């Protein structure tokens, strides 16, 4: 599997993402600077977390209009897999590759902690190595992770099985107590209609081995490796 990681001014999870990908796929991903207008040959494009352009105007708004994003959009339309983590998710909604928007956390605080997520389906390239029966533990680190979509969009996402992850309790209940940021329907991540673009607020790249505090992020990259090789 060939992966590319796009780096913007203010990206700060690009290194973690590069390390996770290289460790698990055995192949160094290509680093792509935001001013590029073309992407290298690759199966997976990752938009890493960070605070690009200081979150000016809206989180991800400036990065979403970078020259490279036209190429990312085109590549997604051509069927490549795209993973947007945290700020990357915000960029995906800002470009319109994914519906909805990420707003200021309902409690207004920046949140940095582990959360539990339900894996809503495990028949995608991103989640094939997970079980849907057991919540996974992944960290979040964001100020603007409050997923909003209007009722019609929300119904469409649910109906089409496009909710990837939900915030749940340790026991798997998607209730208000488990919702860290006010996201509608406890949504932590969503897919595009062809299930090839995934945007998620939690950071799987931060937990890829026990030395880092857990390895629940690892199966995502293992699944991608298996699916895209």
């Amino acid at each position, binding site marked *: 599997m060939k992966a590319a990681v796009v780096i913007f001014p203010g990206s700060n999870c690009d290194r973690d993402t590069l390390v996770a990908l290289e460790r698990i796929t055995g192949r160094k991903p290509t680093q792509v600077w935001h001013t590029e207008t073309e992407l290298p040959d690759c199966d997976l494009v990752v938009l890493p977390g960070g605070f690009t352009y200081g979150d000016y*105007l*809206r989180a991800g*708004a400036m990065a979403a*209009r970078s020259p490279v994003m036209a190429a990312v959009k085109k590549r997604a339309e051509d069927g490549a897999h795209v993973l947007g983590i945290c700020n990357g998710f915000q960029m995906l*909604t*800002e470009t319109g590759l994914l*519906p*909805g*928007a990420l*707003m*200021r*956390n*309902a*409690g*207004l605080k920046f949140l940095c902690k582990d959360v539990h997520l339900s894996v809503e389906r495990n028949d995608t390239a991103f989640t094939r190595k997970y079980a849907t029966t057991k919540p996974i533990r992944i960290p979040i680190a964001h100020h603007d992770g*409050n997923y*909003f*979509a*209007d009722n019609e969009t929300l119904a469409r996402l649910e109906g089409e099985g496009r909710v990837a992850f939900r915030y749940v309790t340790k026991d798997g209940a998607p209730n208000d107590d488990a919702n860290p940021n*006010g996201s509608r329907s406890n949504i932590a991540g969503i897919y595009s209609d062809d299930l090839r673009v995934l945007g998620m607020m939690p950071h799987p790249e931060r937990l890829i081995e026990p030395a880092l505090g857990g390895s629940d992020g690892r199966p995502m990259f293992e699944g991608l490796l298996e699916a895209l090789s």
Partner: protein
Amino acid sequence: MFSTCSEHKEPRQNRPGDMSMKARVHVTLKNGVLDPQGKAIEKTLGNLGFQGVGDVRQGKVIELELEETDAAKAEAAVKDMCEQLLANTVIENYTIELAPTESAA
């Protein structure tokens, strides 16, 4: 663009062509979109003793200086800017105010 301002010191009759435009864009959250910052402001106003304040909504004001002198064209351009960048129409509405500003001439 500012360097040319001082080149025309002689008084001239004001014609539309002598004006530049200033646009003020108001970006507000759509109805039905929860505004946590507005809620926090509302709560703090209550703490300060201001009674009877409800439904506080926080928005943004973005001011732009435009070289365009034709109001219709200027408005069309700013609308395009709003759609492409200044507002996220998934969650936000925008309104545009245009005012001619006398050039520094």
